[in-house]
């Protein structure tokens, strides 16, 4: 049980393509889901059964329509919020964004683009609570 679902959310196709490659190489997941649009990703999450699985979002911040912060805000309201984690992957090197990210409980990491395979290998999810 307790499988891990990896979801890449980024509006840039090339970046998505790169990140897919890295996720597979890092053996984090053999089949990551991809969304170029934050709202679609959220709808998909809503449709999932979260009882026996956890999700890890590789989340871009700067996106049109619904940006990374808005997705995090929306997740906070969801009943399954405790089953979803996020690693921010942003091209921003603005320290304000780093600080802001720490205020969300789902956020377990902050990576600056370009990311490296090793950085994904080192990802550790918090222990499952009994």
């Amino acid at each position, binding site marked *: 049980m307790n499988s891990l679902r990896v979801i890449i959310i980024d509006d*840039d196709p*090339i*970046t998505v*393509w*790169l990140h897919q*490659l890295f996720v597979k190489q890092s053996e984090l997941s053999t089949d990551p889901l991809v969304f170029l649009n934050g709202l679609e990703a959220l709808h998909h999450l809503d449709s999932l059964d979260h009882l026996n699985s956890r999700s890890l979002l590789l989340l871009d911040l*700067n996106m049109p329509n619904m940006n990374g912060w808005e997705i995090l805000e929306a997740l906070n309201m969801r009943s399954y919020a405790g089953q979803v984690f996020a690693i921010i992957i942003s*091209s*921003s*090197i*603005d320290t304000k964004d780093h600080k802001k990210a720490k205020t969300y409980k789902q956020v377990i990491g902050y990576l*600056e*683009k*370009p*990311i*490296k395979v090793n950085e994904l290998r080192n990802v550790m999810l918090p222990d499952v609570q009994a």
Partner: protein
Amino acid sequence: MTKPIKILMLEDTQEDVYLIERELKQGGIIFTSTVVATGEGFKQLLYEMKPDVILADHSLPQFNSIEALKIHQQYELEIKIAVPFILVTGSVSEEFAAQCIKSGADDYILKDRLKRLPAAICNALDKAGIEGERLRFLDEIISNEAMMRQAEQLAHFGSWQVDFLTGRHKWSDETYRIFGYEPGDLQVTYETFLNHIHPADRQSLKKAIDETILHGDSYPCEFRIIDKTGKVKHILSNLQVKRNRERVAIQLSGFNLDITEQKRQTEAIAFQNEQLVDIAWIQSHEVRAPLARLMGLVNILEGNKDHEKYCKEFWKPLLESAHELDSIIRKIVRKTEAVGGTEPSHE
């Protein structure tokens, strides 16, 4: 000991000079005297010796006291000191005496009543002292006023006053200019003022002025006016209410400072700041995106032995990222150029 009084005597009869001097000595006047009998000499001595008192006979062979009075008056205006002019003469008609006083003589003494002369001199000197004060005071006021006018003009700073007892409105020269008029162009009223206030500011300002007159002492405010030529100006103002003992408002006064230019500069700086914040944002977010992509792609190429296969797949995204980076950098350059300009230009 008091300084002797310097007397300039316009007299052609040596005997009369003797009589006058004797009378002055008897009257206890300490003096030095110089006698002159011609118009030329009178004028010259007036400026040279600067007498304290002038005693003049009415008629001389080529000169008379009316002429002398004209010279004397001109002299007083120039040096701004009053010098008593006393006519000492044989019998003259009442009309002539009145004429002399009108022309500026301070007193007249008949030669057969010289006893009155010492007292007349003392009197005239006292009066001249007061008159001199007045002349100097007036001079000071005039020069202060000139300074104030100049200061107002330089600083675009106009003052105004409303007297509630007479209902009279008074604007300083610069207040007229701020409202687009030449000083004194028109008789101003409260309506003149209100009509020039920008319609968007008129009601609130009117209310604030009414409130201040009723309950306040002063009221600093900022509003816009539309001057005679239709130009919108920003005005910084302060109203002040003067009240009588019953606390009833009797006067409203204030100043208007034309701050249009400062406002424009502040807005230009605010616009520049906005652009700089934008540029900083673009640099940290937008520039980094294609750059990060380029770096990511190159990283993969570097770590992979199968170059041939990847190169074909990668050249397109690499080129696209490079072009995107280029267009963002061009956008920053355009924004930076806009910051250099003075006028905000909206795209």
